[in-house]
């Protein structure tokens, strides 16, 4: 099945204008909070109605402003996993699942409920209330309830934000397993670059209600192109930049000149370097090496976060983050750092 979406709507002080399509895959929507991610999902599910545009699943049109089609959420066959799961608190697990099986005869209903309980390892919890379940169990109940309705599209709205950190990774694994078996389209909304990278082959990036980039996840992480995309993919260090040669660029905020791997395209005005892409060096020999002053060091269980200034130029630079694993670096501050030419992100500050 394919999913085609192009919707627009204006609210007071906020406009949404999003279009993308997906082909039977897990599509990620990455954006900061308030960028319109959830609103996009709500338009697809029929909870919110856009002013313009069209939404279609395969040949089935869910919404078409021009043709005045707007199918009720009840008939869209779009499953929505809410952030807090939205389980009905006054119903047991079985009753919650039963709500999505309203059109089946009693015997079939029983059979399907039992099958779903087994499928999500909830056999012994059928008579519990949601408040008596752990976060992970609640998520499984919510998924079971959605699948009971046999949706053609599955919308996951920040599925892990309600969970404790230690549960999160285990549940990510479980969800990945589950999604492998699921045959419909999946859209996952997240503000976490890790989740986006782990789950989605394709990404759509939203900023203030606008689609600012979309494409293959790996290439978007490797070459974000835009300053705001680089930020959303987790890059921490940015500097205003000015081209000085075909393959050299001067980082204004850091006061250093850096060599890049490829020929610099026109209109590049920023560069970015990911926090883990710096290498310690002992002397200023190799290309892209520069002297540093360490400002503070934060120790994690397995890594160091180092905040430093470069002082290549006449004035001292702003803070730069360096993240390094403990196996690579003992905690003695080096006097030089190096960055490989291929690890420098060439960025535009505005979308053209």
């Amino acid at each position, binding site marked *: 099945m394919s999913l085609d979406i192009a919707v627009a709507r204006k609210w007071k002080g906020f406009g949404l204008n999003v279009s993308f399509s997906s082909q039977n895959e897990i599509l990620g929507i990455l954006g900061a909070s308030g960028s319109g991610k959830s609103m996009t999902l709500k338009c697809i599910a029929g909870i919110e109605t856009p002013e313009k545009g069209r939404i279609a699943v395969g040949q089935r049109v869910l919404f078409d402003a021009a043709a005045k089609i707007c199918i009720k959420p009840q008939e*869209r066959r779009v499953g929505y996993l809410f952030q807090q799961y939205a389980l009905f608190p*006054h119903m047991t697990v079985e009753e919650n699942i039963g709500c999505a099986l309203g059109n089946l005869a009693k015997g079939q209903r029983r059979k399907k409920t039992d099958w779903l309980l087994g499928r999500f390892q909830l056999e012994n919890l059928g008579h519990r209330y949601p*408040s008596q379940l752990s976060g992970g169990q609640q998520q499984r109940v919510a998924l079971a309830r959605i699948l009971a309705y046999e949706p053609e599209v599955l919308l996951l709205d920040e599925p892990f934000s309600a969970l404790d950190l230690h549960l999160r990774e285990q549940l990510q694994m479980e969800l990945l397993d589950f999604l492998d078996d699921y045959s419909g389209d999946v859209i996952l909304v997240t503000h976490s670059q890790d989740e986006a990278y782990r789950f989605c082959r394709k990404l759509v990036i939203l900023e203030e209600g606008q689609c600012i980039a979309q494409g293959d996840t790996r290439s978007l992480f490797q070459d974000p192109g835009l300053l705001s995309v680089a930020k959303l993919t987790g890059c921490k260090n940015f500097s205003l930049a000015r081209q000085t040669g075909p393959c050299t660029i001067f980082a204004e905020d850091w006061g250093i000149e850096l060599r890049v791997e490829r020929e610099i395209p026109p209109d590049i005005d920023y560069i970015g370097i990911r926090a883990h892409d710096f290498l310690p060096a002992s002397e200023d020999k190799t290309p892209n090496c520069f002297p540093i002053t360490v400002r503070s060091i934060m120790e994690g269980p397995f890594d160091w976060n180092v905040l430093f200034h470069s002082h290549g130029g006449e004035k001292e630079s702003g803070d730069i983050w360096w993240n390094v694993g403990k196996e690579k670096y003992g905690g003695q501050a080096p006097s030089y750092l190096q960055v490989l030419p291929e690890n420098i992100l060439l960025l535009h500050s505005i979308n053209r």
Partner: protein
Amino acid sequence: MDYSPILISMRTASASIFFTFFLGVFAARLVAGMERERLKMIFDGILTLPLVLPPTVAGFFLLYLFGVKRPLGLFFLQFFGVKIAFSWAATVLASAVISFPLMYRSARGAFEQVDQTLVQAARTLGMPEGKIFWRIVMPLALPGVASGGILAFARGLGEFGATAMIAGNVAGKTRTLPLAIYSAVAAGDMAGAYDYVIVILLISFLVVAGMNWFTAKERKYTRREGRK
């Protein structure tokens, strides 16, 4: 002691809460679901008016509408052969109109407290709107709706001003407890008034106690037991 005011009052309050409850819930659902803020405000204002108007003014309007020669009164008389003004039905009408805003406002507040994502989730699961209301919104709003019902019942029981205007004070027919107390005092029969006052006090206390029990009652789904 004449027991007829107690009987009349109980019958009036019971009949009026029947109408008030369903109309109040219906109106609350309607207004809570309105999307246009201005429309919502206007409806809310009209529906709340009987609560803020002096009961005699509400009674005046009722008389204006349901009097024997007024449009609605004439309609009821001609089509159903029922005379409303100064009959027992008028005590029910007065109680229902005066207690309606309490029911409506409590129910509306309770409906609006229900987490909207639950309603949205129910819709995406294919549940029809009616089923969503009766199986999800209503059970979750029940404490608020029930306490509204109890309040409205108590208010209907104590109704005086509007009742006096449209139903009058006919002994054995439209003389409810509050009117009986008034009549007894007006006739200088303080001992008679005492008896009715004690009855009203008892009933009012039971109502408040019942309301507290309802709102404080622990619901089984919020208990956290046997959690792994």
